[in-house]
């Protein structure tokens, strides 16, 4: 087994662990946030400040009795939570969270992500279909229609930064975003595209005000009405992970990725100062030495030399990861805030909103971006700029494949 492959596997394990914990604590944070918005206390009984609540919930869910409807299509019924869950989980395999901190750096990550998010919808649709029950059936119909309508707008908004940067890899988009290719005119399209993306992501992940597929006031629990125990838990799990993933995508696409730049002056055309590596700057200031000196990683006697480099974390990696997580947290908290505030839309209004507003606006934005890129090309590049002259990806992905 090549070191690279092993690295991917080990990193995958670490990512999975982190994500599962993140999901558990996202439910906790969401409950605490909602409680805060509604003048309540929220879960505070299990452990200090209720911190063990997710653990208790997990144990409870696993121990619940499992019931399968008699008439259900057993194979699809068992499969669909797995599909929904795996697709959402897989999304994170494509998203870099910091410099050098990723599972895979795929050149067409954006396309794959869209594919995975559509695949996740299959899980939900099949879940409702295979339950052989009326409310889940209605729920899956709604999911079907909703995902199709909003995926279009979602894809179009993602095209805006893709056209500007000319790349489908998150690392490139993040790297070029505020770089020398920056042109403040892009804000004209990027800002509305970002807002549109957030709305579409809300709909795609089925959160308020677009939580129609599972809205409990109308169709009980939608597609997962007939699910119980762990199979049920996999749906909300997938949903939370999808919410996290879409926040991550939004950060990469519209918030400058894991970089942290501050403007050198009020004038937006002036270069930005890169302080992405703030941990590194701190380390330099303090002057860590010996065992504490970066890069940080597992003990050297545990991990052989060829693997160590890819499993360790440099100050740059750490600071970018933290920056990325902070940006993501802001978006996730926004999602929670929206959930606490807004009523739910009606099915036909949702469709109208998607097809008659989101889609045309998305198309117009894509058109405007194309015009902008031609007439106001990225600063520092030639007017007849083609994709070949764009900055190359930071990491040579080809190496990974070559060594197999």
């Amino acid at each position, binding site marked *: 087994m090549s070191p690279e492959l092993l690295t991917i596997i080990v990193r995958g394990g670490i990512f999975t662990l982190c994500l599962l914990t993140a999901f558990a604590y996202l439910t906790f944070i969401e409950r605490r946030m*909602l409680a805060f918005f*509604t003048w309540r206390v929220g879960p505070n009984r299990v452990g200090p400040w209720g911190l063990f609540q997710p653990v208790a919930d997990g144990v409870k869910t696993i121990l619940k009795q499992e019931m399968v409807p008699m008439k259900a299509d057993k194979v699809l019924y068992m499969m669909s939570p797995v599909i929904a869950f795996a697709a959402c989980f897989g999304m994170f395999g494509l998203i870099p969270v910091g410099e050098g901190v990723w599972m895979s750096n795929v050149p067409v990550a954006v396309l794959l992500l869209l594919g995975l998010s559509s695949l996740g919808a299959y899980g939900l649709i099949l879940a409702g279909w295979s339950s052989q029950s009326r409310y889940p059936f209605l729920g899956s*119909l709604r999911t079907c229609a909703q995902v199709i309508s909003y995926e279009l707008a979602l894809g179009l908004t993602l095209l805006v930064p893709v056209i500007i940067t000319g790349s489908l890899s998150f690392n490139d988009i993040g790297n070029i975003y505020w770089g020398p290719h920056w042109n403040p005119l892009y804000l004209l399209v990027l800002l509305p595209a970002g807002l549109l993306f957030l709305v579409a992501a809300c709909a795609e992940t089925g959160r308020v005000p677009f939580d129609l597929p599972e*809205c409990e006031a109308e169709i009980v629990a939608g597609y997962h009405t007939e699910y119980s125990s762990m199979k049920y838990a996999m749906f909300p799990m997938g949903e939370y992970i999808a919410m996290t993933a879409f926040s991550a995508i939004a950060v990469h696409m519209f918030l400058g990725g894991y970089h942290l730049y501050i403007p050198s002056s009020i004038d937006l055309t002036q270069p930005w100062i890169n302080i992405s590596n703030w941990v590194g700057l701190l380390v330099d200031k303090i002057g860590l030495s010996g065992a504490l000196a970066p890069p940080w990683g597992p003990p050297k006697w545990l991990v052989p030399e060829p693997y160590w480099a890819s499993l360790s974390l440099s100050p740059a990696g750490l600071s970018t990861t933290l920056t990325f997580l902070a940006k993501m947290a802001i978006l996730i908290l926004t999602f929670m805030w929206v959930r606490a505030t807004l*009523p739910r*839309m*009606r099915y036909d*209004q949702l469709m109208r909103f998607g097809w008659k507003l989101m889609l045309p606006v998305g198309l117009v934005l894509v058109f405007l971006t194309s015009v902008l890129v031609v007439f106001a090309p990225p600063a520092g590049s030639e007017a007849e700029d083609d994709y070949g002259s764009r900055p190359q990806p930071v990491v040579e992905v080809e190496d990974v494949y070559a060594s197999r």
Partner: protein
Amino acid sequence: MSTLLAPNMTVEERGAGHIIVNMGPQHPSTHGVLRVVLELDGETVVRCVPHIGYLHTGIEKLSEYHNYIKNITHYCRMDYLSPMNNELAYCLAVEKLIGGEIPARASYIRVIMSELTRVISHMIWLGTHALDMGASSVFFYCATEREKIIELYEMIGGQRMMTSYIRVGGVKDDTPEGFEEGLEAWLGDFMPFMDMIEGLLNENPIWKERTQGVGVLDQDTVISYGLMGPLLRAAGVPQDVRRDEPYCRYEEFDFEVPVEYEGDVYARYRVRMRELRESHKIVAQGLQKLRETRGMPVMWASDEFAPPKRQDIYADIENLIHHFKYWTEGMKPPAGEAYASIESSKGELGFYVVSDGSAKPVRVKVRGPSFVNLAALGAMCEGHLIADVVAVIGSIDIVLGEVDR
């Protein structure tokens, strides 16, 4: 309705391509155990038939087996979200049967309590209505606000919900110490709260889209169904028992009857919100009158139809015997019949009491607004979407305890 909808109907019985969905009796947004059977074409409701009787408590029948005083305890359990309204309507009917003057202070307390009751009932209505529409926070805000009044309830009646505070001939006790201050504190809190809620919902585009043009009933339909309360006033019929046939000295209070003309869910919402502000106005006036009548009696002066004072029971044997007979045998109103109605939070709540001169009524018939208003559910829902059924049920503001009684 020629054929009732059943989930196991064959394709011939229902329309081709239609499915029959059972909404309730266990459903998150049918506000209790209402069962609505829907025939759906996709998401569109073709037919909608409400089935009731899942919370039948037999309260009307029970009334014939208990004496007039004990009966009061049943009625607060009928519409359990506005307990004092029910007590009040029943007591007014019995008082009509007996005849007699209710002391002013008792009337003022009754007015205050029935307005507060309207507020707590509307709080639950607004909270659940908003929750059905997905605005979950509003529910908690309303519950918090309701709690303040529930505490006043506890202060004055000793219980949070089933108070049995309003009695034939007046009220059970005078207001306790601290009640006026509590009322004043609530009066101060309530308007900012209303501003906040209306700021959240009134101009909220999603809220308006969900409610405007949904479940529309025009004036004629509303009148032909005999609908009352906010549903009637939202369709442009300015009718309010408090103003048209004043009881409990409502004529001494200055208030408006809010009317809207669209007849949709949003108009009902606006009517109720404006009603809440009117209630606040009435309670503020009531508090003033309460202060003016401090120390005056709260129960009518009657040997036969009022319980003796506690200090008298300990003083002499006649009062002790009277006390004993009053509570065990009950009072015996003259034979006859009487109907009294009030404007409860959900519409006109009427009690029709028939007496044969004994201590137990021969018949107590309740005209429950929830029951009457529910009849129009089908007319409001057909042709709309499932989501609108939920909005309409919320806008009717039903309490199944009163529908089934």
